[in-house]
């Protein structure tokens, strides 16, 4: 399977502190890649680098290259808005805008210039269907999005991300703030989404990584220790540190 994102010798500093060290990784297309590792190991930082959300943090310096479909995302010709349209993101805590459910989903398409009502209606419905929340909210699209449950809010955020038709979806611990039932619904949804999208998911929950992902990358102290098929990583890790982590010896 071809890779959609390839990272070459990437390092990242917050001021003087080096958070990521010489990362090399190829993220396969239309599959789920899980990033695991103890807190502070750099996995979220790495995720945020892929759609350049780290640009917003003062003092961040990045060396090396990340290629998305062959284009260096740090090159001056790259329009960040366009990059983020291609590489969508779902955050750790559900963060719908304080506006109606409809407007939440329509926000992205409107940003990218779609104003026709009919077309917007279509996109909103499709995105909500893809995020498996359409049936629950179709009768209250005009209601404030803050009024639905946390699990629904997170699926709404996924719908919002899908509405701009990205190719890659970055998810930063999308279920850590949710209850087990909402978590399992989102996991089902993630596995469904892999047919159309490439998904990179950060998770603290190793069972979750095993359940949903095809590939797993294990980070430790800013280094990529091991990357491979999830089955291989969890059944026969090559590195001692990976083994220690997945058997619960630290982290």
């Amino acid at each position, binding site marked *: 399977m071809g890779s959609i994102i390839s990272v070459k010798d990437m390092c990242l500093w917050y001021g003087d502190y080096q958070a990521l060290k010489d990362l090399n990784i190829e993220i396969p297309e239309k599959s789920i890649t899980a990033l695991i590792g103890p807190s502070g190991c750099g996995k979220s930082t790495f995720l945020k680098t892929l759609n350049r*959300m780290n640009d917003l943090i003062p003092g961040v310096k990045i060396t090396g290259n990340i290629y998305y479909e062959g284009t260096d995302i740090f090159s001056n010709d790259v329009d960040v808005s366009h990059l983020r349209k291609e590489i969508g993101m779902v955050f750790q805590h559900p963060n*719908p805008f304080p506006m109606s459910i409809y407007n939440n989903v329509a926000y992205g398409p409107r940003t990218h210039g779609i104003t026709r009502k009919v077309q917007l209606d279509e996109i909103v419905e499709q995105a909500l269907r893809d995020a498996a929340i359409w049936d629950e909210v179709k009768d209250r699209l005009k209601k404030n999005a803050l009024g639905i449950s946390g699990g629904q809010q997170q699926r709404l955020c996924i719908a919002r991300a899908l509405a701009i038709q990205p190719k890659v979806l970055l998810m930063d611990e999308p279920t850590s703030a949710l209850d087990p039932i909402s978590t399992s619904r989102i996991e089902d949804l993630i596995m469904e989404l892999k047919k159309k999208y490439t998904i990179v998911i950060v998770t603290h929950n190793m069972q979750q990584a095993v359940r949903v992902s095809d590939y797993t990358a294990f980070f430790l102290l800013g280094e990529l220790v091991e990357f491979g098929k999830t089955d291989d990583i969890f059944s026969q890790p090559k590195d001692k540190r990976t083994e220690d982590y997945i058997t619960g010896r630290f982290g």
Partner: protein
Amino acid sequence: MRRICSRPSIFCFGDFIMAKKKKTSTEQVIHSTEPQGINLDHSKKKQILENIVHGIFLLLGLIAVGCVLLITVYLFISGVPAIHKIGIVDFLFGREWASTAADPKYGILPFILTSIYGTAGAVILGVPIGFMTSVYLSKIASPRVKSVMQSAVSLLAGIPSVVYGLVGMLVLVPGIRKVFNVPDGAGLLAAIIVLAIMILPSIIKMSVTALDAVPKEYEDASLALGATPIETYFRVSVPAAKSGIAAAVVLGVGRAIGEAMAVMMVAGNVPNMPDSLFQSVRFLTTAVASEMAYSSGLQRQALFSVALVLFMFIMLINATLNFFLKRDGNK
């Protein structure tokens, strides 16, 4: 076991549990007789002190409430008779104010309209500037620029209104006369400009607070969807802060309508209908301030009625402000 504990507080509850624990151990029961006596005395004293402090706070709090009540009652008692004598329609909608003429006229429509136009003008001029400034300060400016500019805004709020009036008189009034080529620069336009500057600090400070309070997660979500920072501020941050910004505008309106000194110095202070921007006009506030010193009889009573009308306006504005703030709090 007796305990002085008039209201259930965490402390009393804690003591209670501790006392219970003590009872279970025989050893401790023996030892606990003496400390308990001291404890009881101590808590009684504490309770009395508590009550006294409570009373003092209540008394101090009532001073402000009492003043408001006193002023309200006083204004109504002194303001209503003149309205009754003049007739409410003649008073509110009379177009002529000639309080010292042989046949005195007490129509305050010129003042009411001037106050409304002046305030509206100040809002039209001041709100866009204040709003844009607050978006810049809250979202775009670097921390250093922000701190410098915010101190400047605070300083602007601290300048006494007589200084605004003075600067307006010496700079603005002659300026308007030259630029627009009118015989006298003192008038509605000068007052509007001065008021617009005077309401800037309240609008900016309150809007910045509201915009700063918008959760960063909203903005991150918008940026992650490919919106530019400016799009994000105006389509996500500002709508999320709209109650606070609306409250800021209402606060500015309240300041503008209540201002007397500065407008008296630049508005010309003649009781004309505000027919043009360059007309010499008199506001509700300045109507009271400029005649009170030498007024007598019905004229004096009528001035109280003018103050009552102004008071009503301000009450209305405060009610609106509370409405916005409450709505913000309920979210």
